[in-house]
């Protein structure tokens, strides 16, 4: 098991928003967490990245308890995040944004160039624009850049917060195609989404509601059944 969350509680100030979430992600899997707005999906991401403290319960990553490890420490352990709203730095160039992924120092100096070439092969649209300001990119391209930057950090597990956020359906489809391509190269994903589109590429799906687990299924099974509509759209 790469990531295991057991009965996690957290919140803001004195208000609890996650009331005992449990889930796990195995090496090489794509796992989706679905739920409408305000179900605690983003709080779950913040908990995993170390921006919210764990009130009670346990989170282990690669056999190590995460405890109070800071966000940058977790990223250096290989628990990397595609932040909500992409987190592209507008004052930096496309190339500089990409190279920020190297801040985790998980890639030996000798492999940097090969990794960058591989990322640019995945996103040829970025290759010709490395020297341009990141602010000149479209929303879809910025999401590619965010994904590319995360790959530059050689993640073990990539936490993705709303890959589809504010993007056209065609762009979302392309991005999910890249996600399943990446899984073949050994990257594990935990994707938090509002849109059920993510289910097509994922193995298992957790549905959250009101800060609690309500359902866990194989994604294909869920897509075929009417449970999704029943539990999610209710």
């Amino acid at each position, binding site marked *: 098991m790469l990531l295991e969350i057991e009965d996690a509680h957290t919140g803001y100030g004195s208000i609890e928003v996650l009331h005992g979430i449990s889930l796990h992600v195995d090496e090489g899997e794509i796992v989706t967490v679905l739920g409408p707005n305000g179900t605690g999906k983003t709080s779950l991401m913040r908990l995993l990245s170390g921006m919210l403290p764990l009130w009670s319960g346990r989170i282990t990553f690669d056999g190590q308890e995460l405890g109070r490890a800071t966000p*940058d420490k977790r990223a250096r352990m290989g628990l990397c995040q595609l*932040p909500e709203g992409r987190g592209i730095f507008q004052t*930096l160039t496309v190339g500089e944004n990409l190279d920020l992924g190297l801040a985790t120092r998980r890639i030996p100096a000798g492999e940097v160039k090969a990794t960058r070439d591989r990322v640019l092969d995945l996103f040829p649209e970025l290759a010709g624009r490395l020297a341009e300001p990141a602010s000149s990119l479209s929303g879809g391209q910025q999401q590619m850049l965010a994904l590319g930057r995360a790959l530059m950090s050689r993640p073990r597990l990539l936490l993705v917060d709303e890959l589809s956020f504010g993007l056209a359906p065609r762009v979302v489809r392309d991005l999910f195609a890249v996600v399943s391509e990446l899984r073949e190269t050994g990257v594990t994903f935990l994707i938090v989404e509002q849109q059920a589109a993510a289910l097509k590429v994922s193995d298992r799906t957790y549905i959250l509601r009101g800060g609690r687990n309500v359902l866990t299924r194989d994604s294909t099974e869920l897509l075929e059944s009417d449970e999704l509509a029943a539990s999610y759209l209710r």
Partner: protein
Amino acid sequence: MLQTIVSGLESGSWFALLGLAIVVVMKAADVPNFAMAEMGLVATYVGISLAAAGVPFWIAVLATLITGAVIGVLIDIALMRRLSSYGHFPLLLMTIGLTLALNAVVGLIWGHDPRSFPAPWTGAAVQIGGGVAIGVSQIVSIIVGLIGAVAITAFFRTQVGAQMRAVAENRSTARLIGVSAGRLSAIAWAVGGFIAAVTVMLQAQSALVSTLSPASLIIYGFVAATMGGFTSLLGTFVGGLALGVIQQFVGAYISSAVQFSVALLVVFLVLILRPEGFTKGMVLRDV
């Protein structure tokens, strides 16, 4: 006239360099460091003592620079890092406290008499016709100031520099993707201390420095940084040079008694005419 300009560019280079040191620490570590000039003073006094003890000039210079960087790192690790979870205000107070403490330490060890750091070229001058002479030490200050500004700009283009700019733009996102704020802050303090050492050393190879001199230098440095909105390197550098020249002209044609007031008047005007530059700096602190 020409001499006034050159003198202005000379002191302007010091203001610009110190302003740049302040901006570097501000960008990465998010603290307005009031102790910057004092850090440079301590380092420079170490160099002066070494030179006085017979250590060759360039080795004393190297020791001064290293001391400046080491002081920066020590301050960050021993003091700033412990306070960082309490917000900006304690950090700011700490730099003010450090200013007083470092100044007192210099006074205790070296006394309060003005000193200089004589370079092999100190006292030499270049005749440029018409009876006008320019001191070599003035030229050194101006050239080193330019080199420093170019070097700092180049530094912000490196990978570490880009990480600092990312932290300045959005601290929490930068941490999320694995940028270590602690490591960057230590580097920024080292760079800041290094530049502060360069600045005070430049001052001391041309003029006299003492425990009294950092007080005005830090104000001028902050005025330069203000002109760059605490973020723009070019704005800070040009602002520092302009401030030096303005100040020399005021001293030469009005009175040296109002030089200091003019610097504060400049801040006043910048804040009124170009508040967006300054506001940007304020937002940067809140992130």
